[in-house]
């Protein structure tokens, strides 16, 4: 196997911190990874993890609970970067919001700072379940960056296995 013919690709989108863009982010990442021949499960895994990360950026990073609040606030932007290196997919979700005081604590299942919002506190736990690697960098007052990696399996005998 030649190492140097690994396919590389890069895409970056920036959107308003507004709950309707959660669906948009999922569609973008789905489109991006289509060429990597993911299985339905891999596709759903990445979509779920991205949904969690983007939702966190919106409601925790920027504290936006209603779509209208984001209107006109040009600072409230969520940035999503998709990187492909062969069958390795990396998705980076970044916000310039309030940041996380204690990342270790935030990553605990069922931990939530907004119990009144009927959130489950499973956001980070889901990202960890559905992705292979999750890294969180956060700085109070500056923002949070979540880097998630997943290795998409290669279909061994592509030509024969289909039908």
């Amino acid at each position: 196997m030649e190492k140097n013919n690994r396919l590389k690709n890069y895409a970056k989108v920036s959107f308003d911190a507004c709950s309707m863009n959660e669906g948009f982010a999922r569609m973008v990442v789905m489109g991006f990874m289509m060429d990597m021949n993911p299985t339905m499960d891999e596709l759903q895994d990445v979509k779920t993890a991205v949904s969690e990360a983007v939702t966190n950026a919106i409601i925790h990073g920027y504290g936006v609970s209603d779509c209208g609040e984001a209107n006109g606030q040009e600072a409230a932007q969520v940035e999503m970067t998709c990187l492909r290196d062969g069958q390795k997919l990396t998705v980076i979700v970044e916000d310039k919001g309030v940041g996380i005081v204690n990342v270790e604590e935030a990553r605990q299942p069922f931990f939530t700072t907004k119990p009144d919002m009927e959130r489950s506190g499973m956001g980070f736990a889901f990202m960890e379940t559905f992705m292979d690697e999750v890294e969180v960098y956060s700085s109070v007052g500056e923002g949070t960056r979540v880097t998630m990696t997943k290795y998409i399996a290669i279909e061994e005998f592509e030509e024969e296995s289909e039908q």
Partner: protein
Amino acid sequence: MEKKYEKKYEVRGHVLTYQMPKEVDHHVAQQLCRELDMLVEAFAVQELELDFEKTEFMDSSGIGVVIGRSKTMQFRGGKFSASHLSRRVSMIFQSAGLQKIVEVKEA
């Protein structure tokens, strides 16, 4: 109101069956909670069933919806169930231990 999600529900006596949307994320969860609470109140519902037949995507926001409604129904002394879980939704339910608080009806 968005047309993307066609919402349907059925009330029979004090039993409310609610068709969950195609995608259950934070965006729809907010409206969903409000709507479900309003319906439960309006029809004096004693038995709530969430039907996931059309649900293709659900993230942790859906867990919040289920936990919240479970509390509501518990408070009212009623029954609470979920039906037609896809393999994916079922996996999400199990990862949060939801089967302990909601009766999952097998298809």
